[in-house]
């Protein structure tokens, strides 16, 4: 573990180094050299950036500020750094950053880790160090810097043929100013970026050495298992801990106050059993006798709520986008198509239930957690303990899956509160039941769509109403319909050239915490949109692929100021200039995937292909699912093809595996998974009733087609998911003529 004093020292040095740069603007080189030499003790590394440190031993430490949860970010960012640095891959070490604003945004969500600045920032840091090492070598040899080149962990001088390894140059290089705009490599010179590189964590994962949040430990640590309120907003009414306290190993039972709703990132409250081991704590929790106060959410029932959402989506909502005259076009349609779609709550259900260990002392709090957002964890812990943020150190372990769940640090706060009470380090072990029943469910959505076809089968009108509780309702009262940010996930940015188009956001009150889930509202929105296009194609007597191409129209950049959106449309936090909505890229992924999947081929009875295309997180994805439905209604998926254009590809093998994983998660969402409420409580409790796809139901083959168009990188982790569910239901329709409009499929066919 990194100690506080080491951290402070490192921070101090970095601040001094930064200060040295400011001095450099007006100071002479000699003076700067003298000033800097005061700051650097013998043996100090070269640290041109908070993300990079090169030791005199030649080891290169890359500080990764984003959390590793399967998307391969640790290896990908090392590839970027090593490439620009011209490092020897064998010398690369990863250090996982603590939560600290000096690293910029560390929230590992929104598929941002490569696309939002890190790619460029890591390249610049590597290039800066390479330039400093080259200058140091040139000075050492007394030759012009233009005569030397950094290559594979050393700086070389061609004539005479000599070289110095990076480690030998560190002492001199660290006294040099950090170039602000170092020359970046040309893409043709890349050695790691865009190449196949084995993951740096692979060996640890294969030998059981990888440390996740559930595995973290501190000396003298106690284990806590918590009984959470069964209904959002209820509190402990009565507590009888006598039986729990009799269990061998149980040390204390502590009540955690319930945060008033909406509770945001703070704990739900409940009763914690603290023990000397996990088994004792689990038994202790089972032995608790607790009654709970009434909650405004006691009557929440998913069946009744669905009817509420349906009624809401059948009436006019808040108009968020309007073009032409939808009402007139629908009234004058040669053929009108109406369809309604339901997508239930989902649980992220990462294989590792959330866990955190915290130690609170008079000096502050140090914690280890499987968190997607260590800065938020730090801030939330500080707020709960009422201590300054700077007094909280949040280390990040590997995350055993996350999918949005672990961007909410309530479990880290629980560990900190309990450690303060126990005056000892405490690890909170969330169980699967906690994860399923006391998490942050993905939103539920009811959507009402109407479309008009003219006499030639051209789509002339499109009305989309969505009723779906917003994530914002977890953080602020009075949030009763989707936010503009959530509506921008598929609805406001619908690219199709339909003359009369309207989108409305309808009322949907939240009755539980609502949280991010891989691809967020794109998941239900893409389900409705791409299913409805398939239904329109059927009504128009057209091939679905042809209709999508027709709706995309000629290749063009969609002017997002002219799509009828009431407010400016968010583009995943990026600009529309840098990442325009490009119909050519939709077309390309659609053409690639349909060609590769053999679209149009003759299939036996009971089999069909379904297609869907969707852009999210700046990346374009098209999916073809091949489904076979037996006479008994059993669904088999022989093959899925997925084409992805995520702009520039840094780590191609991991892009492929993320696409494969997105297919599996998309199929879980579509076929097996449903989280529902009865009397305010989550009905499901573990993987036996909250079902996710297993090997036997997985596609026999997933073919990933990287259709990268180059340019700025887009997101990768999330965008594969949204088109999967509609492609499946469209395939089922092609196979059977049966239209699925309510998920999950598994219980309906």
């Amino acid at each position, binding site marked *: 573990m990194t100690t506080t004093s080491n951290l402070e020292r490192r921070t101090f040095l970095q601040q001094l180094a930064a200060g040295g740069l400011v001095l450099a603007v007006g100071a002479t080189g000699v003076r700067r050299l003298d000033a800097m030499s005061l700051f650097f003790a013998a043996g100090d590394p070269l640290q041109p950036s908070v993300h990079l440190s090169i030791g005199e031993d030649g080891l290169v430490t890359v500080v990764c500020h984003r959390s590793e949860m*399967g998307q391969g970010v640790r290896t990908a960012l090392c590839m970027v750094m090593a490439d620009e640095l011209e490092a020897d891959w064998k010398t690369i070490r990863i250090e996982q950053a603590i939560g600290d604003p000096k690293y910029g945004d560390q929230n590992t969500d929104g598929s941002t880790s490569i696309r939002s600045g890190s790619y460029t920032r890591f390249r610049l840091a590597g290039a800066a160090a390479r330039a400093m090492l080259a200058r140091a070598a040139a000075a050492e040899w007394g030759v012009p810097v233009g005569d030397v080149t950094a290559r594979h962990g050393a700086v070389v001088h061609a004539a005479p043929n000599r070289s110095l390894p990076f480690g030998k140059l560190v002492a001199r290089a660290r006294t040099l100013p950090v170039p602000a705009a170092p020359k970046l490599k040309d893409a043709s010179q890349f050695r790691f970026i865009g190449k196949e590189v084995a993951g740096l964590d692979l060996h640890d994962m294969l030998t*059981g050495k990888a440390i996740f949040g559930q595995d973290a430990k501190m000396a003298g640590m106690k284990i806590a298992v918590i009984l959470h309120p069964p209904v959002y907003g209820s509190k402990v009414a009565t507590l009888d801990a006598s039986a729990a306290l009799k269990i061998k190993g149980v040390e204390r039972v502590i009540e955690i106050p319930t945060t008033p709703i909406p509770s945001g990132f703070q704990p739900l409250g409940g009763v914690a059993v603290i023990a000397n081991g996990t088994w004792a704590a689990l038994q202790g929790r089972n032995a608790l006798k607790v009654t709970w106060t009434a909650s405004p959410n006691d009557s929440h029932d998913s069946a009744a709520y669905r009817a509420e959402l349906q009624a809401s989506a059948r009436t006019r909502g808040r108009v968020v986008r309007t073009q032409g005259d939808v009402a007139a076009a629908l009234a004058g349609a040669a053929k009108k198509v109406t369809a309604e779609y339901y997508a239930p709550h989902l649980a992220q259900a*990462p*294989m590792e239930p959330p866990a955190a260990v915290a130690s609170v002392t008079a000096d502050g709090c140090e914690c280890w957690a499987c968190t997607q957002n260590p800065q938020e964890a730090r801030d939330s812990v500080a707020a709960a303990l009422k201590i300054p943020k700077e007094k909280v150190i949040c280390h990040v372990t590997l995350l055993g899956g996350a999918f949005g769940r672990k961007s909410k640090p309530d479990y880290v706060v629980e560990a900190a509160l309990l450690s303060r009470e126990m005056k000892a380090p405490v690890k909170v072990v969330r169980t*699967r039941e906690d994860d399923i029943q006391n998490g942050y469910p993905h939103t539920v959505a009811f959507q009402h769509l109407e479309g008009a076809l003219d006499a030639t089968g051209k789509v002339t009108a499109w009305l989309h109403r969505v009723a779906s509780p917003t994530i914002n309702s977890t953080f602020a009262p009075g949030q009763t319909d989707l936010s503009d940010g959530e509506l921008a996930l598929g609805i406001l940015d619908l690219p199709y050239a339909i003359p009369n188009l309207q989108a409305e956001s309808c009322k949907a009150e939240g009755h539980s915490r609502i949280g991010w889930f891989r691809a967020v509202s794109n998941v239900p929105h893409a389900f409705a949109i791409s299913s409805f296009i398939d239904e329109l194609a059927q009504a128009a007597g057209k091939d679905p692929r042809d209709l999508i191409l027709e709706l995309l129209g000629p290749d063009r950049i969609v002017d997002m100021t002219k799509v009828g959106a009431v407010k400016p449309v968010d583009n995943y936090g990026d600009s529309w200039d840098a990442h325009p909505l490009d119909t050519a890229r939709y077309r390309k992924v659609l053409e690639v995937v349909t060609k590769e999947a053999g679209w149009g081929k003759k299939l036996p009875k009971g089999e069909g292909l379904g297609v869907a295309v969707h852009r999210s997180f700046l990346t374009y994805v098209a999916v073809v699912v091949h489904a076979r439905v037996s006479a008994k209604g059993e669904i088999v998926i022989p093959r899925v093809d997925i084409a992805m254009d995520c702009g520039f590809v840094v780590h191609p093998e991991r892009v492929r595996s993320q696409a494969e994983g997105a297919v599996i998660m998309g199929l879980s969402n579509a076929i097996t998974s449903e989280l529902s409420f009865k009397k305010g409580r989550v009905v499901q409790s573990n993987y036996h009733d909250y079902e996710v796809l297993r090997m036997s139901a*997985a596609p026999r083959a997933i073919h990933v087609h990287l259709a990268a168009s180059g340019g700025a990188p887009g997101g990768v982790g999330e965008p594969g998911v949204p088109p999967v569910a509609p492609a499946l239901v469209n395939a089922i329709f092609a196979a059977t003529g049966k239209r699925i409009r309510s998920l999950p499929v598994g219980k309906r066919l």
Partner: protein
Amino acid sequence: MIVNHMIIHRLPSLPMRLTVNGTPRTYDGDPTQPLLWYLRDELELTGTKFGCGISACGACTVHVDGHAVQSCVTPMMAVADRRVTTIEGLSAKGDHPVQKAWADADVPQCGYCQSGQMMAAAALLRQKPKPTEADIDSAMSMVICRCGTYTRIRAAIVAAARER
């Protein structure tokens, strides 16, 4: 009594003996404690993962006398005088055919379930050196991967079977 497919003839007298990754151990604790927590909390062998606690996900899969067993529902009394192998003991250097095949296919994403996946696969290949697709489905559907590495797991098992 039958616990997790293992017949327990009589309750063991404490302290009981067992072998973990080749090391003889004695156990004097709660005979109903699941093997999982003994491995993780007491021996600090955290390669065996907690995923569900009810043998529904397979993240905790270990070998008992060479057979794949979900350690989260296997009480300590069921492993008296038995040989337990965890991922840490599957091979000395991480070079079991399954581990090599997993590396070649670049199977893991987050990695959390992979100990259980590899232990299940190793037990399958020990019983059925040339497993059919149905054998793989049957054995491996016990272990959930939420990242969705199933096609790579299948390919890795086929490759490992070919190597043997």
